[in-house]
């Protein structure tokens, strides 16, 4: 077997707590499909037959009832971990180490992409790399996000990614938060790769191909707890450290004395591989006296996508953006066959209607996603919104640019603009002319807000 797929679905969605209050991030509906269906679909299309899914018990329960996930033909080996959130992605890998028999492909459940996966895996195979990952050029989000004053995003910490001149070999990776006073690059890297391109506008897709030796290394080295935050920068740095390329027995002795667990990447037929490399007239660089790969055994590669969709759904803005784009990936009918739509309803072509919906007359639905089991009564205008499952929208409502979570009820004549309505909430009918820029209703502050607004009107 060549690769085992591991899907990390235990993330809490810490940057979009509004949405994940009731629904776990992995099961958030995107285009009426649960979020984790997208990476599973990607794996299935490419030809995987088994996936190890690491998730919480809550998600596991939700998965067993969801129709779309039952549709997935691959064998899902669900491993549940504690929900308290102390376990990082690397800790989770350590947890499933006994199941891992070959090299692994780690994905995050919030990745929606149409990348040709063979591009990443080919780098991993051809160069016998220790790690290969996927990154994509970041796109600006154009939609207005409920809950944000103005279009300016909160300043995210930038990632500095250094690649060589072919654009494939990863030389340097650091987050702005870790760099106190400027970017420093070691001379040994510059000597080996005099031309380095440093890019900042890249999004890490959290898709990694890792060698089995890395997982074994993680079991020894318990201090690493996050793949993205700690393991990847460690591997990138290790490429150029002296011990990685040394075959000096004295240095190995030195290591054992200090007991730092080492990455053992040699294979069984090392002398033969060495012989083939010696006889081959290929070198990855020109101009200095060193052999291919500068004699380094640890190599990290990155594939940077510049076209196509690659989005990580970990913020509200990303969630809204992806709801627009994700349905275009598949050629499914925008209206579910079991939905009951009356004839006098004006529906735009880029709207999606879920299963068992009731859309009454004189409604207008434009650029919106309507979830399953939703009821929309007459004279409702829905524009640019995301409506999740089981929502009831009474007559005469006007909903614009909003996100309405599951099982909410929007009272008659309510007017919502750029609002975010939490799970199972009720919006007061007519009397509350909700027309503020930002309104967030949760179970805790509903009563308070209601009183406040009543006093305003």
């Amino acid at each position, binding site marked *: *077997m060549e690769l085992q797929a591991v899907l990390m679905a235990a993330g809490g969605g810490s940057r979009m707590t509004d949405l994940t209050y009731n629904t776990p991030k992995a099961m958030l509906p995107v285009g009426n499909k649960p979020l984790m269906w997208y990476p599973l679909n990607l794996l299935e299309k490419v030809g995987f037959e088994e996936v190890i899914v690491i998730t919480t018990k809550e998600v596991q329960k939700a998965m067993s009832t969801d129709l779309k996930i039952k549709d997935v033909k691959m064998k899902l080996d669900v491993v549940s971990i504690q929900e308290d959130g102390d376990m990082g992605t690397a800790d989770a890998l350590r947890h499933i180490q006994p199941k891992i028999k070959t090299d692994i492909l780690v994905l995050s459940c919030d990745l929606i992409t149409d990348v040709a996966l*063979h591009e990443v895996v080919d780098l991993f*195979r051809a160069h016998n790399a220790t790690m290969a990952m996927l990154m994509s050029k970041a796109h600006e989000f154009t939609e207005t996000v409920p809950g944000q004053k103005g279009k300016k995003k909160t300043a995210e910490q930038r990632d500095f990614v250094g690649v060589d001149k072919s654009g494939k070999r990863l030389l340097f990776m650091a987050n702005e938060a870790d760099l106190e006073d400027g970017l420093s690059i070691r001379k040994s890297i510059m000597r080996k790769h005099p031309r380095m391109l440093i890019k900042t506008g890249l999004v890490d897709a959290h898709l990694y191909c890792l060698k089995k030796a890395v997982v074994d290394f993680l079991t020894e080295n318990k201090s690493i707890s996050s793949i993205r935050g700690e393991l990847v920068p460690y591997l990138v740095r290790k490429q150029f450290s002296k011990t990685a390329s040394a075959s000096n027995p004295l240095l190995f002795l030195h290591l054992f004395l200090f007991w730092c667990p080492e990455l053992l990447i040699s294979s069984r037929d090392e002398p*033969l*591989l060495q012989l083939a490399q010696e006889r*081959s007239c290929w070198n990855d660089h020109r101009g200095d006296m060193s052999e291919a790969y500068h004699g380094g055994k640890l190599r990290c590669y990155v594939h940077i996508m510049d076209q196509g969709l690659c989005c990580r759904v970990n913020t509200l803005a990303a969630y809204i953006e992806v709801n627009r784009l994700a349905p275009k990936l598949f050629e499914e009918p925008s209206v579910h066959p079991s939905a009951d739509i009356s004839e006098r309803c004006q529906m735009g072509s880029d709207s999606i209607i879920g299963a068992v919906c009731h859309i009454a007359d004189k409604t207008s639905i434009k650029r919106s996603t309507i979830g399953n089991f939703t009821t929309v009564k007459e004279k409702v205008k829905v524009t640019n919104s995301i409506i999740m499952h089981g929502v009831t929208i009474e007559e005469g409502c006007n909903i614009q640019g909003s996100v309405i979570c599951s099982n909410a009820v929007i009272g008659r004549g309510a007017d919502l603009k750029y609002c975010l309505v939490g799970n199972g909430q009720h919006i007061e009918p007519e009397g509350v002319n909700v027309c503020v820029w930002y309104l967030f209703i949760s179970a805790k502050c509903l009563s308070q807000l209601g009183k406040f607004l009543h006093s305003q009107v």
Partner: protein
Amino acid sequence: MLSLIVSEGKDLTKEEKQRLRKEKKQQKKIKEKKDDKASQENEKEKKPVTSAAPASQPPTQPTPTKTKAELKAERRARQEAERASKQTKKGETGQQAATSKPKAPPSDLQPVVKRLPEHIQVDNPDVLKKLAKKLERQQIPLRSDYGYKVSLFSHLHQYSRKAPLTQQLSIPSTVIHPAIVRLGLQYSHGIVAGSNARSVALLHAFKQVIRDYTTPQNEELSRDLVNKLKPYISFLNQCRPLSASMGNAIKYIKKEISNIPSNCKEDEAKNKLLNCIESYINEKIILAGVAIAKCAIEKQKISDGDVILVYGCSSLVNHILCKAFEKNRKFRVIVVDSRPRLEGKEALRRLVQKGISCTYVLISAVSYILPEVSKVFLGAHALLANGYVMSRVGTSQIALVAKAFNVPVLVCCETYKFCDRVQTDSFVSNELDDPDDLIVTRKGTTPLEGWENESSLGLLNLVYDVTPPDFVDLVITELGMIPCTSVPVVLRVKNVDQ
């Protein structure tokens, strides 16, 4: 007198009629060979002939030892048998004629038709269909050709590196062993290049395949493993056409596998095979290299004060030069290089790292630099049975110019690269590399950028060419120093050994 004439006339008529019969039979044979269409016509022709033949026979039989009827029956039976055998042979020749061009002219005997390999018949749609069917059966995707092919070479495959074969394979590859997928990728990206490197890498991958192999129920290892290897070899062929050395290595392995006795246990058999592979690499590649170097150095082929010209990057020639330098011979090297591969830079790096003083020129300057040169050392991809040397494109040019300047040309080649193919020109069988390699960007402009849109422009990136034996003075092998024309002798001896 009259009686004589009468008797002569009788003899003549008898002989004449026998001759007529023979002629008719020959005509029949020629007609059957040329006529591939309906056999009914032939049958119709045969019937009157066969009916004519016995009809003409009875009056010419003077003194039968058997009765006329018995002889007639005999002859009819013989002709029926001949007709039946000709029908089956015609069926075969019909098929063969569609897929090959008969090389021998039609003669009395059935022509010995050689089947042409499919990789040099890409412009024949029947061959392509057959290949597609074969690959489908083995569950290997078909790699499609890329770009406009120059008409002289339209019978060869031309692939693009941007469309690797792995695009159409499932990602945890189940049909093909992962080591073979990795090897195929390395071949098509050029990471493993050079005849020796490719063979060693192939054998290394086969070792992993054998290690991971388990005999299924009710199957014999000797037969099943060979069948398992066939799709892998097709896959590697699709990634990059196999070299002659790889072909010989594969033949050796297949022979070793089929020679495993059926009562051998699986672990023993696997160990035996792994040892065979190890010993093959050791004998034919490593030790052969050592022997060739020793031969070249001791027989004073590299002497003090020599100026040696090498072309491209041949692992064997580099090895010889490094060994000679270690033995304290004083010489300098001129490395000749050519686009688009620029392999000479790698050769230059290896020699300079050792401490040898080198000069680097491009092939366009070879006639300028040759007056300084005392010997030319060339590596070979394969040595053909008629003494021609198949090597990197440009080698024949170097040999030609060296001959014009009376500089001795020595080819270094291990015996496992000898193949029994015969070729006199570089057109018939060659390899077309990715044409996009020829595109180069200088000072910000790329002149050949949109070459696919020009309908009359074709880019040709040849990989190999053949050098006639008149330009080669000596071939250094581990069996000694032989002239180019002794290659078939070595091949014959090798075949007899096996």
